[in-house]
């Protein structure tokens, strides 16, 4: 019984062979991860490189990596195609809808976290259901309504519907953050004489400030990248960047340089935001369920 086990430990694999096997496995893992990273990174890499190339360099295969980068494409996109106007549209609409969602959603999230009201779960799950609505299905009747009341192709029109899109995230994620603030803290402050409202603004809110920024940035990311609703509900005036990008495909079709330049202009701010909130991404994507 014991003897056989002793033999097991005595059956020494040569130390060198052992270390080799381990090194091989680790090498394999890193290799696999490298390939995977290349897959995820390549399209972005391609877009960046192409946007900095001149026409002749773009269509040469194998892809040319050594070249002198030029920003002509970017200049072209911005000046000739009024990209800055669309950029502003995206900024205004995204920011306003995020602010709107925060104003509506944060108090609601706080109440869901702290109070016990009838049908609390229903509220939460109704709000959650907004996350799952197909934008195109909603967009169609919305389009009809908006054209009738003059909200078509307006900033406000998109903002109003984007707020609904952001609410599930704001409410669920912020509820999670509020849950993490110990209620004893608020109770202690209340015992010290502060009113509920005062406690909320002076004590609780600063503690979730990080959470609010992360949520705000996350919703910004979502609305900035939204396409379906914007496609249907905007014309020329309120058109957002992703929709304009599609226009580019139609008008610039073969000008890959300009196309990728446009793509990068749209994507770059969001890449930066994404990296900033990378520790909160999982929380955002799963609506606060996974921390």
């Amino acid at each position: 019984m014991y003897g056989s086990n002793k033999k097991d430990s005595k059956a020494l694999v040569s130390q060198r062979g052992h270390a080799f096997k381990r090194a091989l496995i680790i090498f394999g893992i890193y290799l696999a991860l490298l390939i995977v990273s290349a897959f995820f990174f390549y399209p972005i890499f391609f877009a960046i490189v192409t946007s900095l190339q001149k026409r002749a360099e773009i269509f040469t295969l194998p892809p040319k990596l050594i070249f002198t980068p030029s920003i002509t494409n970017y200049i072209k996109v911005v000046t000739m195609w009024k990209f800055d106007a669309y950029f502003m549209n995206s900024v205004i609409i995204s920011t306003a809808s995020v602010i709107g969602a925060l104003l509506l959603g944060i108090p609601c999230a706080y109440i869901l976290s702290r109070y016990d009201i009838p049908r609390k779960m229903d509220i939460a799950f109704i709000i959650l259901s907004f996350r799952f609505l197909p934008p195109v299905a909603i967009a169609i009747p919305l389009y009809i309504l908006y054209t009738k009341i003059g909200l078509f192709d307006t900033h406000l029109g998109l903002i109003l519907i984007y707020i609904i899109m952001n609410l599930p995230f704001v409410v669920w994620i912020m509820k999670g953050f509020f849950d993490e603030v110990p209620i004893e803290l608020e109770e202690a402050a209340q015992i010290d004489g502060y009113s509920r409202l005062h406690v909320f603004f002076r004590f609780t809110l600063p503690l979730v400030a990080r959470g609010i920024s992360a949520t705000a940035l996350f919703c910004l990311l979502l609305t900035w990248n939204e396409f379906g609703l914007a496609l249907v509900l905007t014309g020329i005036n309120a058109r957002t960047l992703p929709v304009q990008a599609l226009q580019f495909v139609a008008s610039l079709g073969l000008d890959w340089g300009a196309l990728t330049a446009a793509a990068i202009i749209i994507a770059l701010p969001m890449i930066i935001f994404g990296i900033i909130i990378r520790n909160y991404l999982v929380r955002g994507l799963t609506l606060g369920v996974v921390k």
Partner: protein
Amino acid sequence: MVEIYLENITHIYEGRTLALNNISLRIPNGSFTALLGPSGCGKTTTLRIIAGLIRPTKGKVYFDGDDVTYLTPQERNVAMVFQFIVVYDMSVYKNIAFPLKVRGLPQKEIDLRVKRIAEKLGLTQYLDLPAHKLDAGTRQKVALARALVREPNVFLLDEPLTNVDPKSRLEIRAILKEIQRDLKQTMIYVTHDQAEALTLAEKIAVMNKGRILQYDTPQRLYEYPANTFVAWFIGNPGMNLINAVLVEKNDRIWLDFKLFKIDISEYRDIIKGKGEKFIVGIRPEYIRVLKTPQDNYIKGRCYLVERLSGKMRLLHVEIGEIDLKIKTPLNVKEGEYVWLNLPKEKIRIFDEKGDLLI
């Protein structure tokens, strides 16, 4: 069961933190060893190196003379139970059977072993239940069973009873002693609780700051601590330690404590050449105390009395600048004067550095 020999193990974490400083340790076959020390002393690191979870920065590990430093835990055939109770998301039976199944043992053999070990640990009634739904004590027993079922070369335990309720703690301690006795299993038990170590282990390695200070039986640790740290650490409270200066007069040598002296002429040969300053230790329970003066007794004032369990009291007594703690059932009140005697055979003398001389 194997004999374990650690040879000159030094371990540095992340190139910066020195966890183990050139330790060597020989753990006899079939013994129950405790690694005892304050947090951060390196006991868990030592255990993990023996397990094979960490490869030491320097030094080697031997099982029965074979160099296992580069082998995985599986290859060394070690079993380990952690402070954080680990049960897998499966039935108790499957938990215990897991290591055997991984090894590819035939189902019949697995069944035999699992049932046998479950019986030994009192888990038979739980075998078909999902393991993660049971209470802490039972779960740790499952973890124990899973470790023991493999009949490992050495059984390693890292503070396994910390997260277990007191009643189960007693049960498991009894089980551990029984197992060690019956199976002659080499066991290494990490703990910071000396009561646990003193009750369970045959030999204890006292560690501090990455060094092994003494590896000995509980009795010897208690009576003959190798240095002042061990003297102070072991015991509740530990040994009294006071500074003294060597004085030579009239062909006799004394230890001078300013307010009293102790004649140590019979130790002249040992003491000679070891310097002038010494640390003297004596355990609180060995100091004789009286309420009335007596020859050869030193006068002191009791400034604090702590009641201990039963009739015992802990007296804090000051003799000038010297502070002594005494354990006695004598009814002394705070502020009273007492007379103390330090029996020579219970005095331990340490040199300036803290190592035991006498």
